[in-house]
């Protein structure tokens, strides 16, 4: 099967993730969009691995997964804390950290 299809799928997923991250206000959704981008890049990495015939890409994707898992832990914790204090998960409301 042509690996290009996987790359195209990866690109589509990544774009969906980017648009979701930029357009949605809900922190949970934005967060899921980030995860989507990470997974899109994982897909691309694995495809590259297939194309080049070595394992580098697959190993890299493992790293991404580990980082993503760690990120989920911290990110969700932050979101939950923000929700507790502000009763909202809108990313636009949490805008105090500025000039």
């Amino acid at each position, binding site marked *: 099967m042509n690996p290009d299809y996987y790359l195209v799928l990866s690109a589509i997923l990544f774009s969906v993730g*980017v648009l979701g991250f930029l357009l949605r206000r809900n922190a949970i959704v*934005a967060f899921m969009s980030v995860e989507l981008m990470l997974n899109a890049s994982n897909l691309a990495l694995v495809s590259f691995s297939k194309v080049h015939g070595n394992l580098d890409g697959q190993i890299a994707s493992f790293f991404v997964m580990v980082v993503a898992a760690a990120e989920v832990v911290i990110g969700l914790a932050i979101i939950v804390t923000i929700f507790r204090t502000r009763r909202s998960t809108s990313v*636009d409301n949490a*805008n105090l950290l*500025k*000039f």
Partner: protein
Amino acid sequence: MNLLETTAPIAASGLYSWAWLMIAIPAASAAFLLVGGKLTDAWAHLLGTAASIASFVIGLLLFVDLLGATEGSRAVSVPLWDLITTGDWTIQVGLLVDQLSILFVLLITGVGSLIHIYSIGYMAHDSRRREFFAYMNLFIAAMLILVLGDNYLTLFFGWEGVGLSSYLLIGFWYFKKSAAVAAKKAFVVNRIGDLGLLMAMFALLTQFGSTSFVVVNQNAASLSGSWATIIGLLLLLAACGKSAQVPLQSWLLDAMEGPTPVSALIHAATMVTAGVYLIIRSHLIYDQTPTAQLAVAVVGTVTLLFGAWIGTSKDDIKKVLAGSTMSQIGYMMLAAGLGPVGAAFAIFHLLTHGFFKANMCLGAGSVMHGMNDDVDMRHFGALRKAMPITFLTFAMGYLAIIGFPFTAGFYSKDHIIEAAFHESVVLGSLALIGAGVTAFYMTRLMMMTFFGDKRWLKGVHPHESPMSMTIPLIVLAVLSIIAGAAMNNWIGEWLAPATGAEVEQMSLLSITPIGIITMLTVAVGVFLGWWFFRGEVPSTVPANSNVFAIAGRNDLYGDAFNEAVFMRPGQHLVGGVSWSDDHLVDGGIVGGSTGMVSAAATVLRRLQNGYVRSYGLTMVAGALLVGALIILGRLA
């Protein structure tokens, strides 16, 4: 061929190797009294006096030993330790006990001990008497380092040490603003003189690689003329600062703010003569340079007139004596500037002056003691009956300073005037005029203080001072009379090896024509002084004074000159530098660049708006831009 070249100092042995004790004892006593604090209050004055006397005893033993030694072994060097050894230089801390320094040692410790004894009574009611004695001991130690050091750097240690003790003692009553200001002024003006000594040492090191008197003297002949002149003038600058010679004279009059024993010891008898010592010590350098020698003589002559002028118009008894001190040191400088012929006379006059001036300063202190610390002679008068001992001793000092026949000053000062005439008629006549003026202002002082009517302020009951004060007065008075005759025939020969002077027989009784003229001039001065002040003396300063008196009262505008030429421009300079530091260096060059950075930051921080999604958009845009650039880069 110079005598000193042939007689290099011999190494110390026996008693001489303990010469450092002379310095160590008062130094240790000073340290002990300062660190010991209030615990030592009860007996501090006794310890201080004992330390000074101990130094005197050691000095006396050394002197007796030198008297018995052969001429070739009368200069003894006592090396102590290496101060600086680096590169090719070895600068030692060492002492040189020779004919010149031992006389100074006796003067310093002898007069110093008497003044210590006097101070026991004079300072009895001061709550800080302990500190006073500590500083006096510090002074004795420093002054001994000055005269005993065997090289210029060791001398400089003492030089600055006496400056420090002078500072501490002038400002002893620090709670008076005038005293504090006078102390600071003395220190700073002295420091200007020190500049000269410092630079002279640098030049000596450049020329000889050493500051030792022996090395410098041995090689002085190979010094190039211009360097000899430069070094000579630099040393003269140093001497001017320490000895209150024009143009660095302004501090001495203010220095009278200190307690009177201090004025007697430091600002009359010993420290202020250090400049003369320095010049005589360096006489082999001056021998190479007639220019610098002439400068010394001119400075001395100017100062001797300058000081005498001030002496004629002051009403403050201590300031009259201070002006007189300047004037007498002017005589010594003049003698020192005359070269080898004058050097011995300079030292001779220095010693006799040490006696009679200390005597008179202490006498003035005794008067002040009886007059509730008043110093204005217009409030004195008719004190000869109230204070007979003070009067009699003071009168002996008076006779000595005006050069009354066969008193100390008669021998020492007349020799200087005579030598000055031999050198140049101009210098001689000016010195002669100075002698007349001296007689005038001293007579004025005597008349206003001890004769005439009582002009005492209310509540003042003059009384004779206690024994501890009168005994030193009596001793000094006797010395003022006999010292001249005692040393006249001996001192020239004694000092010849150290000063390079030709030995000249000076008879006790023979009187030269110049001597007669001098006596006549002095008599005129005395007569004028008596004539003008024989009657009423107004108790306030008369308004219709002549120009000369007004100038004299204002110290011949020395302070005004300093203020206009140095202080004001200095203040403006400091102000200008401060302004430029704030506005140009910090504000302009450095501040400008920080200003640009902060202006840029003010604009750019707007990007930090707090909206996560706008950050995200920026990131995406950035990523796209980078991607686009990479792709375009590949295509190109």
